[in-house]
């Protein structure tokens, strides 16, 4: 008799899902590992530029989200 699995996953189905994940995401993990250490020297200029970019993108995304919700409300 099969044991009750509180997670809803049997061992075999978990194995299948690992296989699926490994098959489809291993390339992404490999790319992340390959480029994990940025080659560029983190000078103050580079740090400031990257920080500026992050702030710019966050503001832009917030504006886009605001626009999206105002459009939906209309």
């Amino acid at each position: 008799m099969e044991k009750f699995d509180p997670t809803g996953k049997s061992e075999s189905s978990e194995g299948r899902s690992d296989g699926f994940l490994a098959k489809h995401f291993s390339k992404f993990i490999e790319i992340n590992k390959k480029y994990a250490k940025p080659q560029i020297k983190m000078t103050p200029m580079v740090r400031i530029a990257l920080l500026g970019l992050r702030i710019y993108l966050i503001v832009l995304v917030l504006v886009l989200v605001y626009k999206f919700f105002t459009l939906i409300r209309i």
Partner: protein
Amino acid sequence: MNYLSRFYYQYRRVIKAIQLYLLIAGPGLIVMIADNDAGGITTYAATGAKFGYALIWFLVLLGPVAYYVQEMTVRLGAVTKHGHAEAIFAAFGPFWGWFSLIDLSLVNWLTLITEFIGMTAALSIFNIPPIITVIIVIGIMMFMVIQGRYWTWEKLAMFFCLLNLVYIPAAFMVHPSVGSILQMGIIPNFPGGLTAVLVFFLMANIGTTIAPWMIFFQQSAVVDKGMGKKDIPWGKLDTVLGAVFTVVVAIFIVIVTGTVLYGMEIESAAQASTAMMGTYPLVGTLLAIGLFDAGLLGAICISLASSWAFGEVFGWAHSLNNRIREAPWFYAYYFFAIITAGLVVLIPNAPLVLITLFVQVIAVTLLPAALVFLILLLNNEEIMGEYRNTKVQNVVSIAIVIGIISLSTLYAFSVLFPEIFV
């Protein structure tokens, strides 16, 4: 005799230089002329119709701006032998790498749709249904890459670049007043003052001059062509000539619409072409051919920019010198992008205007990042060595980048919140 031999020596030198240039020519010319894509042609046509010749001086200024940005991609590609996507991953890590790659593929795919919109509109003037246009375009784009030779692809692309020059004879056919062009167009001026409408047009013209895909495309093309450090001067010359071509074409479009359609509200280049048909049928036809060609050239370059970027990052074979069986993923992505973009245009009542506006906004999320990365990479001595930016190059390129980022952001805001700019 001495004079003759010296003349012959100089003649041979010039011929050799031209032959060498023709071998290297390609990426710079193609990217710059493809910059006048369907959206670009619409912007120039609308600018001419709205302000006549008055903003020609501004288009002249945009030539050096485009050159300064694109020239950096030549050096970066020739020195690192990496495309821009791979260079971002390697230099700044996976976060910025994935951001750039995903954003690029989204922006490029949406821009591809706008190219298809332009091409179907252009051929509908000749009563060709959109589905036939989409099939023709996909057929041409498949034929260009199926040969498995970069050289063949490049020469075919350059043929389409030549076709982009149809606006020059078109301008002569409408008999513009040269005196008026010189008087109104050469001296910098803001017709009617610095109004919101004028600022919107200035921003739109800048937006069409530098697009994110151009940076990725030219760097990857330089790498795929196999250009090295010794070819950098020729690559720069290629980019200069491309910048001159793109400005000349833009000016002649403004002259055509500024002469014939001055005072008309133009919303698309196809509309301008149709409006011309009544008075100048041949000019209208040339405008439609030019619009189709511009859309095709844009589509060719944009779809390749994405495929190259994915190929570089995922480690797929990603050269146009590879046959389809040698680089299946590279070509699969290329075909997937063009076929799906073409199909979107065929969907009845698809929100094509919304897509066109959305492209302008989304492009602004990628352009600053791509430009900032470009400058940071070009200033890194370990990567660039003696080819890094000089102080003068930095002052000019940083000023240009700040200007482009500010104005393109303003443009995106004007698209999102038009009520603020009224």
